[in-house]
């Protein structure tokens, strides 16, 4: 592995200072489950690794308030999200997604912030956070800024973070009271695999009639574009409609239109488009069924 110096600041301001001094020669380290592998494969050759794990205010903190929503510190471990009672009750879609990442060993170290900053098109925590309309709080030298997660990703492996900024917190607004979400990940293996296609859906349904009426729909897709994306035309085709089989089928076709997969070793673009339709239909079907069971 390429040699780097290891630095462990004990505060965010110290970390920001180090980023100012070392600039693009430094990389931030949280769980390390992606970064160390990338360094060993020579994807990055940082001179300095700035370990954020000694910084108390960045470590696993889940703060929930009815008015402000839920705030998760960036270094919340994936394992914590998977097993948190609060998250299991309020945002089960997040716990579901966390449970699909890697292995127990990986989940014990990997962090939410790391998953977001890695910005893989397949990133499992991203579609659920997109359908929950999450925001990210970015700390820089001159202060903090808060932006929608949907604006955070600009390409495969690329975010809007400047080299001297730190992703500090993820904020999830209070969800609609009668909403429900689901996350489906399709891969060759049940664990330790990237999503060949991923789909997160959050719906607000009215069950008064023969077919549920869709009051609100948010659909996000992973691995079928340069970044995880919200399927805007699919959402538009669903909101305000009764969820009959015909509508569901139409929504799935719009989701294909919203996606732009490439052919790679995980599958052809043709195949991934088929997967998008299948996952969207399965997710919608399962959500409707869950609602009736309630």
């Amino acid at each position: 592995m390429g040699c780097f110096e290891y630095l462990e600041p004990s505060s965010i301001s110290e970390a920001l200072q180090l980023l100012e001094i070392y600039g693009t020669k430094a990389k931030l380290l949280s769980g390390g489950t992606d970064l160390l592998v990338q360094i060993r494969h020579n994807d990055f050759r940082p001179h300095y690794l700035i370990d954020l794990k000694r910084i108390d205010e960045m470590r696993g903190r889940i703060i929930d308030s009815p008015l402000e929503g839920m705030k998760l510190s960036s270094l919340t471990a994936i394992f914590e999200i998977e097993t948190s009672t609060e998250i299991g009750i309020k945002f089960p879609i997040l716990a579901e997604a966390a449970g699909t990442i890697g292995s127990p060993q990986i989940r014990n170290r990997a962090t939410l912030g790391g998953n977001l900053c890695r910005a893989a098109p397949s990133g499992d925590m991203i579609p659920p956070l997109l359908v929950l309309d999450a925001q990210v709080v970015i700390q820089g030298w001159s202060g903090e800024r808060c932006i929608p997660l949907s604006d955070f990703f600009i390409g495969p492996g690329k975010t809007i973070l400047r080299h001297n900024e730190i992703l500090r917190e993820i904020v999830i607004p209070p969800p609609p009271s009668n909403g429900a979400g689901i996350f489906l990940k399709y891969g060759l293996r049940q664990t330790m695999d990237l999503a060949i296609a991923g789909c997160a859906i959050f719906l607000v349904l009215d069950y008064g009639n023969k077919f549920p009426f869709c009051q609100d729909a948010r659909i996000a897709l992973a691995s079928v574009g340069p970044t995880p994306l919200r399927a805007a035309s699919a959402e538009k085709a669903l909101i305000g409609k009764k969820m009959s089989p015909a509508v569901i089928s139409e929504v799935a076709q719009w989701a294909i239109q919203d996606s732009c997969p490439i052919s790679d070793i995980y599958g052809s673009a043709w195949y991934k488009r088929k997967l998008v339709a299948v996952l969207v239909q399965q997710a919608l079907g399962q959500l409707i069924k869950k609602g009736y069971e309630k």
Partner: protein
Amino acid sequence: MKHRITLTVNGELQDIMVESHQSLLDILRNEVGLTGTKKGCNSGDCGACTVLLNGKAVNSCLVLAAELGGSEILTIEGLLRGRDLHPIQKAFIAHGAIQCGFCSPGMIMAAKALLDLFPIPTEEQAKRAISGNLCRCTGYTKIIEAIMDAHKFGKS
């Protein structure tokens, strides 16, 4: 740049100098001299390097030694009770869950992490616990049976 770290490995205090880029796996095998933990893929995919870090199963190849100050590590060697094997090791032997043995330390440490929380796990729990551990020999069935049965061989 060298870092001085103090950590506990299998109950014993270790005070060592490590390079920035060395992993926990490197220092366990080279500095501390415990070669029971294996280097398989060195990228967190195979689980052969699994140890317990402060009670949690981790891929030691993906933990930097320099960040370990104050940590407690348990390796396969730490399961030995005097000269007696640990109940999980006895279960693995009784069930024929070991062939070449290369995956076994990682499998057993992953199992220990589970059994510490759920002494009598279901098949699903056992499978999930070793979902990050590859075995090329056994086909996993006997490993899973051994994990579900380990409680009969003593307390974890």
